[in-house]
């Protein structure tokens, strides 16, 4: 029995070994082959070996007009613009009618130079010395032109593919403000940013990450504002990423975060272009990732959770400031309300006003569960409902949430399973967590709500404070690329604090937040007299009178 088993194992091992040996040397072979030869046939064969028999890789061999030069253009169908290729690359070279002069020049040996000279119509060309590099470019959507006898390879930028139109981000909608969101195409995203910041200091630094995905990652910043140390740190961390694939900016986020195990996100993400642009103008670094509309903003602080984009477009004094304070309250409610309710109704009855106590007591007559269990049950049910609501197709989603919320809740009350007060608490909590602008915050808070609830159920308000202090310890030690997570409350100045918690009018906002330690802090000069003032009415009136007096 054992022997047979061992024999089988040995066979399997051998097979595996052979397979890996087979695959390994081939790669090495072709890599070296790719580098050496300039003969077209060999190179084409090398490419075919490397890429396999994928149908969407098009290899078009053709000759130049005077039949002297053999060329091959390679591109990927679906990622390159075929019309452009045939019109502006193949036709001029091949068809004699169009450029006789070109073909006169053309001879073996100077083909590359000739093509470069005459194919100047094409907007984006470059040369690469190496076939592997060229293949890399081709896999990104460019088309490459192999010339028999020439070592260098021409690369044409013919990228074109189906992509989503620029539309309003689904998760970050505002009442007032632009409705443009990033798309999955890098070039579109960069253009969206360029349109907003037409300054020479705007830089796009490109890096690639992911061995198999070769995803393009672009760091965006304004050179004369940004904090150099943060920028350097970001570069370092991204360069250190060595992984198989980067499919979404979330991957990058996890790789470069200070504390990946923390419940709280230390990197902000957004789909909105105006928010991204504002962040860059504040001196932060923006990370664009190919194939995802979600961009990352570094560094950030905890109070990103209370800022929404339209705060900056609406009236400052009342609207935005009060709204921000409201959001702080909402944050606390979303985190603590069930815990407070359980703690007070189970341990600290002396806290409630008498009439409230009596109402709750009356409502809870005959409920089978203790308050903690009831709360946990309701919260869990609500989380299930919420997840279900996200997954359901849109037409059905609305109905289900209404059904779930109202009918089931009401039925539960009537059945005597939960008390009405608890339903109110849970509903309020849920609504509050929807009111938080940042989506990743609500996830964090949702998660934290449960331990706090349990702690409150065990030791009342003392347990709740215990939990809150633990969270506070964690928040206090959290950093986002050198900026304390609780800035500007911690280590900050009053100016920063006002800018974070309230919103001062634009004509008063002179400096960028100090906590970001940017190089150029001045947004506008204080003596510019920007404060808007209505023209003196009497003066205006007199002007009018004078004018009209003349008329009469």
């Amino acid at each position, binding site marked *: 029995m054992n022997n047979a088993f061992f024999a089988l194992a040995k066979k399997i091992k051998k097979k595996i070994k052979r397979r890996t040996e087979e695959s390994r040397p081939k790669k090495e072979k072709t890599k070296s082959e790719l580098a050496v030869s300039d003969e077209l046939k060999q190179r084409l064969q090398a490419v075919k070996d490397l890429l396999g028999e994928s149908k969407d890789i098009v290899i078009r061999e053709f000759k130049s007009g005077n039949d002297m030069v053999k060329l091959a253009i390679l591109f990927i169908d679906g990622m390159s613009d075929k019309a452009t290729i045939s019109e502006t690359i193949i036709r001029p070279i091949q068809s004699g009618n169009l450029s006789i002069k070109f073909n006169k020049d053309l001879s073996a040996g100077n083909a590359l130079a000739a093509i470069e000279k005459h194919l100047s119509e094409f907007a984006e060309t470059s040369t690469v010395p190496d076939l592997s590099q060229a293949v890399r470019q081709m896999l990104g959507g460019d088309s490459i032109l192999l010339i028999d006898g020439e070592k260098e390879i021409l690369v044409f930028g013919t990228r074109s593919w189906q992509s989503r139109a620029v539309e309003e981000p689904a998760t970050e909608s505002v009442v007032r403000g632009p409705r443009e969101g990033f798309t999955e195409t890098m070039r579109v995203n960069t253009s969206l940013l360029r349109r907003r910041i037409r300054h020479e200091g705007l830089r796009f630094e490109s890096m690639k990450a992911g061995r198999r995905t070769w995803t393009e990652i672009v760091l965006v910043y304004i050179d004369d504002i940004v904090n150099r140390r943060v920028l350097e740190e970001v570069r370092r961390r991204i360069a250190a990423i060595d992984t198989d694939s980067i499919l979404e900016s979330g991957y990058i986020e996890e790789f470069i975060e200070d504390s990946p195990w923390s419940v709280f996100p230390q990197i902000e993400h957004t789909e909105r272009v105006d928010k991204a642009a504002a962040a860059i103008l504040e001196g932060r670094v923006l990370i664009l990732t190919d194939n995802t509309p979600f961009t990352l903003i570094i560094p950030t602080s905890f109070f990103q959770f209370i800022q929404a984009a339209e705060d900056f477009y609406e009236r400052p004094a009342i609207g935005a400031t009060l709204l921000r304070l409201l959001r702080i309250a909402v944050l606390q409610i979303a985190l603590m309300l069930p815990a407070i309710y359980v703690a007070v109704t189970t*341990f*600290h009855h*002396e*806290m*409630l*006003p008498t009439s409230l106590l009596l109402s709750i007591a009356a409502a809870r007559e005959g409920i089978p569960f203790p308050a903690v269990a009831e709360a946990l049950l309701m919260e869990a049910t609500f989380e299930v409902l919420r997840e279900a609501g996200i997954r359901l197709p849109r037409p059905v989603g609305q109905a289900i949430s209404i059904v779930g919320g109202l009918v089931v809740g009401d039925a539960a009350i009537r059945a005597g399973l939960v008390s009405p007060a608890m339903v109110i608490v849970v509903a309020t909590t849920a609504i509050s967590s929807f009111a938080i602008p940042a989506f990743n915050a609500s996830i964090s808070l949702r998660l934290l709500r449960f331990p706090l609830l349990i702690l409150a159920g065990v*030791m*009342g*308000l*003392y347990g709740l*404070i*215990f939990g809150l*202090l*633990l969270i*506070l*310890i964690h928040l*206090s*030690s959290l950093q986002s690329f050198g900026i*304390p997570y*609780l800035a500007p*409350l*911690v*280590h900050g100045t009053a100016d920063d604090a006002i800018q974070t918690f309230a919103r001062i009018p634009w004509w008063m906002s002179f400096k960028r937040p100090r906590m970001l330690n940017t190089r150029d802090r001045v947004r506008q000069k204080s003596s510019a007299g920007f404060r808007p003032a209505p023209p003196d009415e009497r003066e205006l009136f007199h002007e009018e009178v004078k004018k009209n007096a003349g008329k009469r």
Partner: protein
Amino acid sequence: MLEKGKISPRQAGELMFITIMATVILFVPAITSELAGHDAWIASPAGSLFGLVTVLLVFILGIRYPGRTIFQYSEDILGRFLGKLVALSFVWFFLHLAATVVRQFGDFLTTSFLPETPLSVFNFTLIFLAAIAVLSGLEVIARMNEFIILLVVSSLLAIFSLSISIWEIENLFPVFASGIIPIARGAIVPAAWHGEIVALAVIMPFLTRPRGALVSGAAAVLGSTALLTTALIAVQSVFGPDFTASMHFPIHLFVRSINIGRILTRFEVVIMIIWVAGVFIKTSVFYYCAALGIAQVFGLSEYRPVVLSLGLIIAVFSITLYSDVAELAHFLRDAWPVYSISMYSLGLPLLLLSVSLVRGKLSGEAQGKDKQDG
């Protein structure tokens, strides 16, 4: 170094403020009322200002030995053996303080809020929290404190403002009726409490700007004096001095008595919340000082390994040092003021400073070693 963090003078001041204030406001009014009667609200500011003396002593010592904590410059001043002895006695001071504070905390919570819960639960959970904070470092404690101090001060001010309608100022008079002696006796307790600011001697080397310690320390003492006096005035104007003296926690009962329009009432849980936060910081600070002290006296490169064991010691002491509330009260009222002032807030620092000055004059060196290593 043992502690890589740096805190600003303002953070240090805030830290000291909460450290003093957390228990002062709860315990001192009763004790001072008992000793000084009507004059308690004069005795307590008078006594509290003694804290300024401690600040001055600590500041001068810290300037003469930049980058060194009191554990380190004790050795510099008094030589290895005596210096380590003094440093160890300070370590004991902080340890003892931490255990006492934890005990006060547990007593208050079990008396006033959750009577069925055993004392050890509160003590252990608090020490646990403090241990995590201490392990995270001084900077983290200071950052948390910035958050907590906002909470504490605004709640207290709000409560005092709300309660003004039930104050009856006449109850504060007559003053100076019984002469100076009761005032002096009443002043010793707040003086001892404010002497706790000697912890600044451990923190001063970690300031970004050590010279700022003078202003911050003074601000902390003055701030906490102001708050304590306000509390005393509030409590005495509602309850009168004799009644106050018979309570354990006058502030607690005071807050319980606020009842405006039958709606603004039942605030004592707010007291509990801010008090837990405040005592947490206070315990963390003393715990930290003790841990750092042990590390520096015994030449360790890191204070973190000591933290857990120290925590256990504090936990056990907090339960066994005082068998009942009477012992605790007796200690706080009779033994501790003299003990702490004569030894730690005044005695030893004064000794260190004088020896240092004498040595400085004798040998012509004005400064101790400069390096930051311990």
